[in-house]
């Protein structure tokens, strides 16, 4: 497919997604002018771009929609649910056409006259002041493309100005110190621009002008094919395995010359793994994007007032995981709206607010993502669940009596279980929570439900950050090793005849008394029908004689213990699917290659739980497990080391970027500052206050590397002692510089160092000077490209790069001004003219009064009429280049720079 078209499709779809949500917001706040401006601009962008690409049908629909929005914004008609629905319909039509466009690369046949007529009727019929504009707007038929193009600038001039004002306001809010000239008035005569001028599809994130920072991050990006990332991930996974194998070999050799390089490789691979994982991360908000519209539609359909609150939409998780939870989440929100929340009248009669609330929440916790979906509806009706469970034969009445309400609630995860009274279009079709649960468990996650009748229910989903690499506990049984995903392991208990924990039997069923409760146990050996090939003992004797390890495992609310012979350490493993022949064995979720090169099977706790029967729900065990987790979180990983004196030193491990060893022979002096070459940079080195200077000129010293805003500094120490997890209570405030205070760690008074102190030292003494030097040295031609469209930035920046320029891109004039403020320098600036907020003209004018007054600015516009060029010259642009003329741009840059050199 044509790259331009592909880019257009992607960005338009993003725009549509934002539009959906913005419209729903608009319905709630009909009087928000900024919101309206945003919506108008997004629609305008879509329309403009398709005009530019020659898509008349699409343009016709978009144009009609834009008309209505224009009227709304100008206050000529008012926002009503009907109008919003109509516009949403218009968006759906655009989507349809886009989908066909994607499939066939050409616009589908079809007639939109009806929709357009209705849109126009909405725009005109309801206009409070029936003014002339109606005449200006011929019903946009594809054939009349050209006339429309001509008539449109007149229409657009006014909205454009308003928009500029609104955006400029937002800009001022965002950066009060920048001298953004808020002068939309002179712009009005210039505003007429054809569609193409606004063609750069505004990226979704920019919809909120206030969120300048956020959108800057979003737009510092390139699009990469997902397959490529997948391949990279696979390769990194293999690399991790190989590294593990090397480290394993290293462990068996006391002195090895490979030690140093391997440690280095170890660090690099870890970082690479982390980096590649990050590239696959996407904010969970992407999976939520469709929900506001869904809830809005549902609330209309069901006649309920529903508010959807979304928190933590920027929580990131692996896109593979994201894809897999998208549908379950949608299903659950739909469920909450349909039968979680009561009807409005029921709510009022029970004294609740009319509007029901569904809260979606996501956050990271202990290497997992927690997603909560809660509503303040009626909660689960325990009696009905009971009834239904008995009717469906899932449990007997007697069994039911034994269960707590929370345990009974878990039945809704059983197949064919729906408590909705009536099958509605929305839910209640009996495919429900069991499918959700299966899907979540498929990705190694768990789902739990808590519910209070009359007050609402809350689903908690825990899922791993990524599927590709998991941390697993390696255990052995009957001479074979197995991996158990760490995620499901709650704790390890050693059971032997002598210790307080011993395995007891009820008939043949082993159980364990653990903190005053009975934990059901399964023997891995029995489960897997493993032969016991190394003892001749009878089973009873064995139980007494051998120490057994019990891996306490939790699946949803069900805790159970797996008895194994031995427990090794945990290892990061790459989950590989098993051969199709073995897929039927539900006890394994995959297999992997361990550090020593051997293949082991990965046990699937979900499979084991279902084989052993999970009706023995013990919800107290769960509480316990949670306490355990909470306890663990109070602890901080500290790096213990020795420097000067006898007192051990410590620093929170999270502050340490890396541990390195530095060859003293490579330490150089720069002034009175010691530095070492590190990753292509000079890294300043410090020693602890008062510690003896390294006397010898050779040998290696361990160095703690701290990283601050991309700059490294090293703290040389004598010895790295250990990393331990400890509750951190700093007891004495430090008296000397460089210490936070003392803490008792490992039963010894330990000084906790203040990393900030060293960073300040390094920053003042060294970085200040260093930066100056590089700025003076730089004589390459540095180009600053200012363009609000990611599309054009992506288009131009490689071009300039190839032509030998050093390119920096920013997406708004405000950011360009920030760079100026920060003291960055460029040889030439290329700026787009039409940008939301501050335009290119404004930027050019603003810069005249600043440090960059001498830096030539080349204007870039899709529109280069003589009038525009004249105005450009007037404002002070060195040159004016059409956006699509690459050669003109390059030669203009050349000339401009040559002129500058000539003048200087």
């Amino acid at each position, binding site marked *: 497919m044509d790259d331009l078209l592909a880019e257009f499709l992607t960005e338009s779809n993003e725009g549509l997604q934002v539009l959906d949500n913005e419209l729903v917001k608009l319905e709630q706040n009909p009087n928000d002018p900024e919101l309206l401006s945003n919506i108008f601009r997004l629609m305008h962008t879509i329309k403009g771009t398709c005009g530019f690409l020659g898509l008349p049908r699409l343009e016709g629909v978009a144009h009609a929609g834009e008309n209505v929005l224009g009227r709304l914004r100008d206050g000529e008609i008012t926002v009503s649910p009907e109008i919003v629905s109509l516009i949403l319909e218009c968006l759906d039509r655009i989507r349809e056409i886009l989908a066909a466009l994607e499939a066939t690369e050409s616009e589908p046949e079809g007639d939109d006259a009806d929709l357009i007529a209705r849109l126009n009727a909405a725009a005109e019929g309801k206009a409070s002041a029936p003014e002339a504009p109606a005449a200006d707007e011929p019903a946009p038929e594809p054939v009349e493309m050209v006339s429309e193009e001509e008539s449109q600038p007149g229409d657009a001039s006014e909205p454009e100005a308003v928009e500029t004002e609104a955006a400029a306001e937002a800009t001022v809010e965002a950066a009060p110190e920048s001298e953004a000239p808020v002068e939309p008035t002179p712009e009005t005569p210039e505003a007429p621009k054809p569609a193409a001028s606004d063609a750069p599809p505004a990226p979704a994130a920019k919809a909120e002008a206030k969120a300048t920072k956020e959108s800057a991050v979003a737009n510092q990006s390139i699009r990469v094919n997902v397959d490529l990332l997948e391949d990279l991930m696979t390769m990194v996974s293999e690399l991790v395995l190989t590294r593990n194998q090397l480290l394993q070999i290293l462990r068996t050799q006391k002195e090895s010359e490979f030690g140093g390089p391997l440690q280095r490789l170890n660090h690099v691979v870890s970082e690479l793994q982390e980096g590649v994982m990050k590239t696959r991360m996407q904010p969970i908000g992407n999976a939520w994007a469709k929900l506001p519209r869904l809830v809005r539609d549902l609330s209309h359909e069901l006649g309920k007032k529903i508010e959807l609150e979304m928190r933590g939409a920027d929580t990131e998780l692996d896109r593979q995981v994201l894809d897999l939870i998208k549908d379950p989440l949608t299903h659950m929100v739909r469920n909450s709206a349909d039968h979680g929340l009561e009807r409005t009248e029921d709510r009022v009669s029970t004294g609740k607010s009319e509007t029901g609330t569904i809260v979606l929440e996501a956050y990271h916790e202990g290497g997992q993502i927690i997603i909560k979906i809660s509503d303040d509806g009626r909660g689960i009706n325990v009696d009905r669940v009971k009834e239904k469970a008995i009717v469906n034969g899932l449990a007997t009445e007697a069994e039911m009596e034994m269960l707590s309400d929370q345990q009974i609630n878990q039945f809704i995860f059983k197949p064919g279980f729906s408590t909705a009274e009536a099958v509605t279009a929305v839910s209640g079709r009996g495919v429900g929570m069991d499918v959700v649960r299966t899907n979540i468990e498929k990705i190694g996650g768990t789902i739990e439900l808590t519910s209070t009748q009359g007050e609402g229910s809350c689903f908690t989903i825990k899922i791993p950050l990524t599927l590709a690499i998991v941390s697993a506990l390696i255990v052995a049984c009957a001479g074979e090793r197995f991996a158990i995903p760490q995620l499901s392991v709650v704790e390890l208990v050693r059971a032997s005849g002598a210790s307080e924990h011993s395995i007891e039997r009820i008939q043949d069923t082993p159980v364990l008394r653990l903190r005053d409760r009975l934990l059901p146990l399964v023997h891995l050996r029995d489960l897997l029908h493993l032969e016991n090939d190394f003892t001749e003992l009878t089973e009873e004797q064995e139980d007494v004689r051998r120490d057994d390890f019990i891996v306490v495992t939790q699946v949803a609310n069900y805790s159970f213990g797996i008895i194994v012979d031995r427990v090794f350490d945990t290892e990061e493993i790459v989950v590989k699917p098993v051969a199709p022949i*073995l897929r039927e064995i539900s006890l394994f979720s995959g297999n992997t290659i361990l550090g020593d090169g051997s293949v082991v099977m990965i046990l699937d706790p979900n499979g084991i739980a279902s084989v052993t029967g999970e009706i023995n729900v013990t919800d107290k065990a769960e509480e316990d497990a949670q306490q355990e987790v909470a306890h663990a979180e109070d602890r901080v990983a500290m790096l213990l080391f020795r420097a000067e004196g006898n007192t051990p030193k410590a620093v929170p491990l999270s502050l340490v970027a890396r541990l390195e060893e530095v060859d003293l022979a490579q330490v150089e002096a720069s002034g009175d500052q010691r530095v070492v070459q590190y990753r292509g940079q000079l890294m300043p080195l410090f020693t602890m206050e008062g510690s003896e200077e390294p006397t010898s000129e050779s040998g290696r010293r361990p160095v703690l590397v701290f990283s601050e805003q991309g700059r490294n500094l090293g703290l040389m120490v004598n010895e790295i002692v250990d990393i331990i997890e400890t509750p951190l209570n700093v007891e004495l405030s430090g008296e000397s510089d460089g210490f936070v205070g003392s803490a008792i760690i490992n039963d010894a008074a330990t000084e906790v160092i203040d990393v900030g102190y060293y960073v300040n030292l390094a920053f003042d003494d060294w970085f200040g000077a260093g930066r100056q030097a590089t700025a003076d040295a730089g004589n390459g031609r540095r180009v600053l490209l200012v363009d609000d469209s990611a599309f054009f930035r992506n288009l131009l920046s490689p071009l300039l790069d190839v032509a030998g320029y050093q390119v920096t891109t920013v997406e708004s004039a405000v950011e360009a001004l920030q760079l100026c403020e920060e003291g960055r320098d460029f040889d030439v600036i290329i700026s787009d003219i039409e940008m939301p907020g501050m335009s290119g003209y404004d930027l050019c004018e603003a810069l005249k009064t600043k440090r960059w007054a001498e830096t030539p600015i080349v204007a870039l516009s899709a529109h280069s009429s003589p009038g525009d060029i004249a105005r450009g010259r007037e404002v002070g642009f060195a040159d004016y280049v059409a956006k699509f003329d690459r050669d003109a741009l390059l030669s203009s840059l050349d000339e401009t720079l040559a002129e500058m050199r000539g003048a200087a």
Partner: protein
Amino acid sequence: MTQTGQDMTGTDLSNDFVTFWIAEQLFGIHVLKVQDILAQSKTTPVPLAPPEIAGSLNLRGRIVTSVDVRCRLGLPPDTSEGGGTSIVVEQDHDLYSLLVDSVGEVLTLAADSFEPNPPTLSPAIRQYATGIYRLEKELLVVLDVDRLLDYGRSAAA
């Protein structure tokens, strides 16, 4: 390994077979199917797997499922302590190693010595065999790897 049916010298490989022995019977599989020949290597048994699955092994970072062909063909287990050799084949992007008693040479066989399975051949062998080649000294049974590894089908059968 070339996939085009021609090796680098341009020789036609379409009638080349890797031969191996199981229970003193000569078998052959198409040479283009074969990725590798392994001597006995460390195999991890897979509990609960069907009996013909000898286990999994690590071949240069890829996990290979080892299939005991003797068991698959319904022949009695190998009582000798020889250990055996594995022929690695790829099937639908998964690697399998076929555990056999010993591997013979690669033979180029003339099409005119090929005959369909005799109807009296034991069903266990017949379902995986495509036919027989008449060699000078013995008979070679050609096995179809796809069928041999099509677990779903044979389980249904």
